[in-house]
């Protein structure tokens, strides 16, 4: 059983110091601790399991290569998610052409929304499909903030650190992302949104 939480006496900074010394066990522990958080971010971004796993693999490889750049006072999770975020953007730029991005399995118009029959459109069985398609249509930064806030459940302060932008900018971009998302899902879920 791989540890998912560091021991009381062994905080993340001690583990990182061991990783810096190329300690295999410490590296495996760090990976076990943070793999889900990285996967969550990548999956929310791409909505594709395989791509998300590629990002997880690549993120920890990059961590191993750049661990010497990590300073003790920094927040390790934010530092790691910053790496993951950059990889997501690069991966998206490299592998997701416009045609691929919109090459979804099921056209959004064909999804089972049953607008007229259901009182609450949020009960629709394809709701998550609509949301995942609409998230993809957001601008990269807005998408990242939306994903980090809603699925990684990070605070504005942490998102600001990961993206390297001001706190006010995060707040304003989150607001814009929510407004845009509402505009994007509205045609499918009813005008009442």
């Amino acid at each position, binding site marked *: 059983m791989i540890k998912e939480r560091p021991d009381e006496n062994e905080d993340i900074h001690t583990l990182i110091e061991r990783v810096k010394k190329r300690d295999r066990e410490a590296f495996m522990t760090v*990976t076990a601790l943070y*793999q889900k958080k990285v996967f969550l971010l990548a999956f929310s971004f791409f909505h594709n399991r395989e791509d998300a796993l590629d990002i997880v693999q690549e993120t920890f490889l990059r961590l191993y290569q750049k661990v010497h750049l990590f300073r003790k006072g920094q927040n390790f999770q934010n530092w790691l998610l910053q790496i993951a975020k950059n990889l997501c953007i690069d991966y998206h730029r490299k592998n997701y052409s416009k045609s691929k991005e919109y090459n979804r399995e099921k056209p959004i118009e064909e999804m089972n929304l049953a607008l007229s029959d259901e009182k609450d459109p*949020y009960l629709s069985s394809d709701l*998550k499909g609509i949301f995942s398609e609409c998230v993809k249509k957001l601008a990269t930064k807005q998408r990242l903030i939306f994903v980090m*806030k809603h699925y990684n459940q990070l*605070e504005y302060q942490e998102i600001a650190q990961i993206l390297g932008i001001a706190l006010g900018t995060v*707040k304003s971009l989150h607001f814009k992302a929510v407004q845009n998302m509402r505009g994007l899902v509205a045609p499918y879920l009813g005008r009442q949104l």
Partner: protein
Amino acid sequence: MTECKKFKKDFVALLSQELDEEKTKLLQSHLDRCPDCKREMAQLEKFMKGAESLKMDIEQAMETVDWEELPRKITENVFKQEVSALKESWLGRLSRFLFQPRLRPVYAGLLLGVLLGSLATYLILRAPQLKEARSTKISVPSNFLESMELEMARRETLDYLERSQYLLLDFIQSPSEKSAEFWQSEFASQKARDLLAKKKYINPQLDKYQMAKAKIICDQIELLFYELSQISVKLSAGEIKKIQKFIEEKQILMKIDLLKKELGKSEV
């Protein structure tokens, strides 16, 4: 209305629990007073909950991943890549050293040297006679050697004629009682043998340089010496005397003189 617009900007932050206490209180009191904003807030809350639906999808995807195995796999790959990166970096360093820009002139010089060396080797092996001709550093006109050989042949012939003339003169002038023994003497037979040998040597030269006149006389002299050295033993003194007279009558010695003069003037 302006107040509503100002508060609406904080709706998302409030629902995300990112608004500080003071602002939260202000917004709550506004929502209590403003039914439009309250409705808007309710719709936004519904949307935010709807967005949570994506979480279910994420949770489903996460259930398909073996979180126990993944760290092992990642660690294994990372450490494997590190080993290959180390190897690569060793090769990379070597290739960087070998192909560094400042070594380019050296490689260019080496390449040029190899090319020139190959070309020179090819030319030398292709025309060896050219090399020999160049290495002697002596150049003579092509007809020089020919004229040299002609001159040598002429001198050889002159020498042959002169020695033959002396021998014949000795033979003619020998006293009649001793003339029969002349060709049996060691001195004469040796001279005759030498002259016969010399004739054999100058024969090809006489043919080569077309000294026809000289050749006829030389042939007659040769035949004469041959006969005399072979048969003189069996001849009587009278017959020897006859031969001596025959030589005088035929003016062989004079012919030899004339030929010598002609050869001396290169008119043969």
